Every structure is written in structure tokens, then in C-alpha cells.
């Protein structure tokens, strides 16, 4: 890795860390410079301005939390029949429901939320969503060919719908103790299975 690239990713790491603890507004270029022991202008060498830095930090943060998802292409190579496929889809959703994954789920809402008021960020996040969900949609098409999934479902719409379950879970978790999350999960799986099964 080039030295320049290393500095760039350290700057992004520092910005993400600030967002994690106190939100976007807490990002200060001067603080990052001091923390990394570099001069402020070298931050502007990598990012045109603070807004550009914030945007790239959001995108990087979002991408990292999607990366931990089970890659669907791999899943398709491992499954041999309908039950195995449906269970793999469940697992890819449950995977993100794990307790220690809460931060990753919350990041999605944070970044999607920020994108609602920032058209440029929305475009970047959209590209990431497309790229990620296109692989889920591809697996869905393949599963339809094999008659594992209902043939009348639109693969991309279905991929977005299944993924949307994860966002709803975050809101239920915000009110921990108030909502029975196990029950929520059981219902969620049941519905996903009913939607997909031919």
C-alpha cells in the first residue's frame, strides 16, 4: 500500500470513529489532524473539503457493515435444494440480528438517515446498495430457475424487501425490553419463508 493511501484510510478511520461516538457534527478536520499528528493541509490533499471527507467516511462506514454479510455467491455454491437455500437466506438475515452486530445495523440506519438530507451521499449509498443487493437478486434468479423460489417474484424488489427487515429490527431494538425480540424474529422468518416459497 502506498504511503498516501495509508494516510487516507487513517483519516477515514478517525472520522468514522468520531461519527460513531458523537455523530457527524463532531467531525473536526483540526482534531483529526492533531490526532494523527499530521498537518491540516495534508487532509485537504486527500479530501477537497470537510463535506467530501464526511461523505466518504459515511460511505466507507456503510460499506464495512455490509461486507460482514454472508456473500450470496458463496452461499449459492453451498446449497443443493430449496430448504437449504431458504435456510441460507434466513441465516444471512439472522447473521445480522446477532447481538454483537447491533452496531452494524445501527450504522445502516445512521448512514441511510444522513443520505436523506444529502443527495450526493444518497447517490453513493445507492450505488453500494445496488451492488450488494444485485448479488442477492442474482441468487434469487438462480433459485427461481431451480424452482426454489416463487417464479412471479421480481428478484430485485424481493432482495430490497428482504433486506428491509434488518432496518425494522433496529427500531425494535431501540426499545429494548419493550418488544419481545425473539418473537419479532420468529415472525420475521416465518413471513420471509412464506413470501419466497413457491
Amino acid at each position, binding site marked *: 500500500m502506498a504511503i498516501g493511501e495509508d494516510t487516507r484510510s487513517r483519516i477515514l478511520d478517525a472520522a468514522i470513529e468520531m461519527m460513531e461516538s458523537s455523530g457527524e457534527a463532531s467531525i473536526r478536520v483540526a482534531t483529526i489532524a492533531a490526532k494523527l499528528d499530521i498537518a491540516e493541509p495534508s487532509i485537504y490533499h486527500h479530501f477537497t473539503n470537510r463535506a467530501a471527507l464526511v461523505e466518504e467516511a459515511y460511505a466507507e462506514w456503510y460499506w464495512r457493515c455490509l461486507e460482514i454479510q454472508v456473500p450470496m455467491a458463496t452461499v449459492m455454491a453451498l446449497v443443493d435444494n430449496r430448504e437449504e437455500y431458504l435456510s441460507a437466506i434466513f441465516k444471512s438475515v439472522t447473521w445480522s440480528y446477532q447481538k454483537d452486530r447491533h452496531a452494524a445495523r445501527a450504522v445502516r440506519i445512521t448512514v441511510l438517515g444522513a443520505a436523506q438530507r444529502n443527495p450526493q451521499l444518497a447517490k453513493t449509498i445507492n450505488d453500494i446498495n445496488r451492488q450488494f443487493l444485485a448479488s442477492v437478486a442474482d441468487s434469487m434468479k438462480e433459485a427461481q430457475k431451480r424452482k426454489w423460489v416463487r417464479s412471479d417474484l421480481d428478484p430485485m424488489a424481493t432482495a430490497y424487501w428482504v433486506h428491509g427487515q434488518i432496518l*425494522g429490527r433496529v427500531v425494535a431494538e431501540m426499545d429494548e425490553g419493550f418488544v419481545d425480540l425473539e418473537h419479532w424474529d420468529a*415472525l420475521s422468518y416465518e413471513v420471509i419463508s412464506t413470501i419466497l416459497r413457491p
Partner: protein
Amino acid sequence: MSVIEDTGEGALRVQKIAESVGVREPSVYHFFKNREELVEAAHIERYRRSHLEMVRPFQAGAALADNAEDFRRIVKKILSLVYSAEREDIRSTRMSVLGAAQTSPKIAEAIRQINFEVFSKVAEVFATAQEKNWIRKEVDPLAAAYWINGQILGRVMAEMDKERVDLDKWNQISETAVSYFLFG
């Protein structure tokens, strides 16, 4: 709040708000420390109203339902209102406020209170319908209220990408899911 709705957040000038409610500018600052705090409060209030706007017709519709079929029709009707094109902006506000809540304990607490208030109301309607055998017994009313709200957030993500996602098809999937969820 109506200033934000008409002209966007950037246009929100404290002086204008003071004028529109007929008070002097310093009185606005008596309630809100600064412009940021005012914007934040306005978004939270918009979040609350956006829920109540849909919860009230749902309560009314359910109260008027005579049988399971009526109730199903009401659910379908409310869902189509919730997903309507006119409400795209308010759906986006929900996501935006929830996003801000993830890194601000203060906003998170305000949101928790609103969620509790509105989802309890929805859960009450579900519980009543359950007593009448209009929705399935296994469903916990409160979990159902949260789950259905989650559908709306999924819709926001899908409609960010209108070119690639067929939203009518997405709606069909969601409608089938909600229907199965409640009625089996």
C-alpha cells in the same frame, strides 16, 4: 415546522418563525437554545405527526369494521396510504430522524417515547382485532406494530433506487407479507 415542509431546512430562519407565530425573535430562543436545537425539535415533531397521521385513520377504520373482511380492507387501505407517493418526503424524514437518533442519546430518547406512544396505539387495535378472531392468535400485537413499521423503512431504501427497483412489485411483496403476517 411548516417552514421546513414548505421550503426545506435551509430556509428555516428563526426570524421568519418568530414572524409567523407573531412573537419576537428572543422568545423563540427562550424555548430553543439555538437554530440547531430548533431544527432538531421540528424534525422530531414531524416524525411524531407522520405516525399519528396514519394511526388515527387506522384506529377509526378499525372501530368501524364489522367483520374480519372489513378489517382486512382497512389494513390494505392504510398500507396503500402509508406507501403513497405523496408521503415519500415524510417517509424520508422518518429515516433521517432515526438515523440521527443512533448517535444522539437525546434524540434516541425522544424517539423511544414517540414509538412507545404510537406503537402502543397500533398494538391496541391489533389486540382488539385479535379478541374478535380477526387476526391470528400467535402474533404479539406490539411486535406486530414494530414489524409493520419496519416495512416502511425498507420502502425508503427501495425508493432511493427507483430506477432499479419496481416499486409496484415491492408493494405487492410487502402487502402479501403484511397480509400473511396478520391473517395467516
